[in-house]
């Protein structure tokens, strides 16, 4: 296996996770990333499902959500390839223990799993419109079985599939599109709400 494992995230998946974090500004949010492994060195993340915005450490809701997500996306040939997390506080850039544990769990089923942490500083400077790189930090599991941040040495292993994704994201933020996003917690409160968010990008 030559070269490092790269990750490519689709625009829909990327935008969904940022909008989810923006909808619940005062709490931590998380969700799973879905996709597939292509060519042994590229993981394509094509979709994401927002999970919850409260009581993230509790397991039963997580277990049910993962079962349903696997069942639904397994039929389409996609599997859970990663997990994303956004911290409660603005200046918290560490991956908390709950996030690491969930990441470990996903890693057991998909060894190339990635964990994305929302980078609040980058999100803030997004409105200046100059940066095309994603506003998240990538964490992968290295040989010491702990989650390490990658990309800090300059070469970024995470790319967004559509280069104008940040501009679309900015547009959505300005038009307050985050109000329409539904996560699994919302679904459990009111099952009429669909965590697949099928109409979000129409």
């Amino acid at each position, binding site marked *: 296996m030559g070269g490092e494992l790269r990750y490519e995230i689709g625009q829909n998946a990327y935008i969904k996770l940022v909008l989810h974090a923006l909808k619940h500004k*005062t709490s*931590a949010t998380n969700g799973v990333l879905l996709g597939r492994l292509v060519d042994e060195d590229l993981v394509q993340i094509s979709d994401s499902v927002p999970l919850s915005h*409260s*009581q*993230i*450490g*509790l*397991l*039963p*809701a997580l277990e*049910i959500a993962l*079962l*349903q997500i696997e*069942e*639904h996306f397994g039929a389409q040939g996609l599997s859970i390839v990663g997990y994303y997390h956004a911290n*409660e*506080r603005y*200046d*918290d850039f560490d991956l*908390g*223990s*709950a996030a690491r*544990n969930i990441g470990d769990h996903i890693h057991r089923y998909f060894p190339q799993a990635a964990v994305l942490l929302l980078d609040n500083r980058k999100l803030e400077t997004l409105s200046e419109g100059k940066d095309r790189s994603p506003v998240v930090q990538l964490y992968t599991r290295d040989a010491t079985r702990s989650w390490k941040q990658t990309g800090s040495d300059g070469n970024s292993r995470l790319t967004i599939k559509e280069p104008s994704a940040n501009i679309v994201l900015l547009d959505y933020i300005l038009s307050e599109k985050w109000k329409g996003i539904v996560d699994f917690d919302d679904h459990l409160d009111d*099952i*009429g709400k*669909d965590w697949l968010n099928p109409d979000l990008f129409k």
Partner: protein
Amino acid sequence: MVGAVEEAQLNRLENQVDNGGGGAWEYLCLVRKLKVRRSEKVLKHGLSILNDPKQRSKLGGEEWTLYEQVAIAAMDCQCVDIAKDCINALQRKFPESMRVGRLKGMLLEARGSWKDAEVAYSSLLEDNPLDQVIQKRRVAMAKAQGNISGAIECLNKYLEIFMADHEAWRELAEIYVSLQMYKQAAFCYEELILCQPLVPLYHLAYADCSAAIAQLSKGRNKEDKDSSELHTLAAKTLEKEYKQRSLTKLPLLTATLRNLKLPS
């Protein structure tokens, strides 16, 4: 924690005010009563009332409560200047007030001057050592600075004195859950259920904690000691509900129930 009826009423009022239908003052009163955190809306509508001299004089004495509410909302939205103006107006009216002193402390917090805020709160506590809100602000400051263990310590000390404060118990339970300290979180939820046995949220959260503890200690082999009738009934109800309201998800539900080894 807001019930469904109140939330529906709040949303209806919010839509009405957003679309220019009036009723801003009722909306703001309801937000204050239910203690929900909708700072952007409160800021927008509160300011529109305060900046309009006619509407302001209609409020009479309530004007000052509105100033306080808008100041807090402004700080939540990081509009520190607006907050400062409101607080100055309150200061002019109530020069020696404890409430205004508290707001000034919160303003220092909003600016990030943690040490100054701590000094301000300590001096206020000297005059009034049993002020609950200020003690809770200190916990909030510790949490905001990332000092979670300090926040837990402060909160525990606070709860030794004010054992009946269920909001504080809830906050402590949530902090423990975020640190995955499920046994301590379960203890907090037990206290909450004792104070307020009719709030379903606490029962659900307690059940989640107990499930998490059981899962982590025994592994995946859960024994079904309870009567399976309850499970079957629950599964049937869920299916009916899903058929009515979310038909596309019904196959997912049956698969999930099968995976959880529940009869469906």
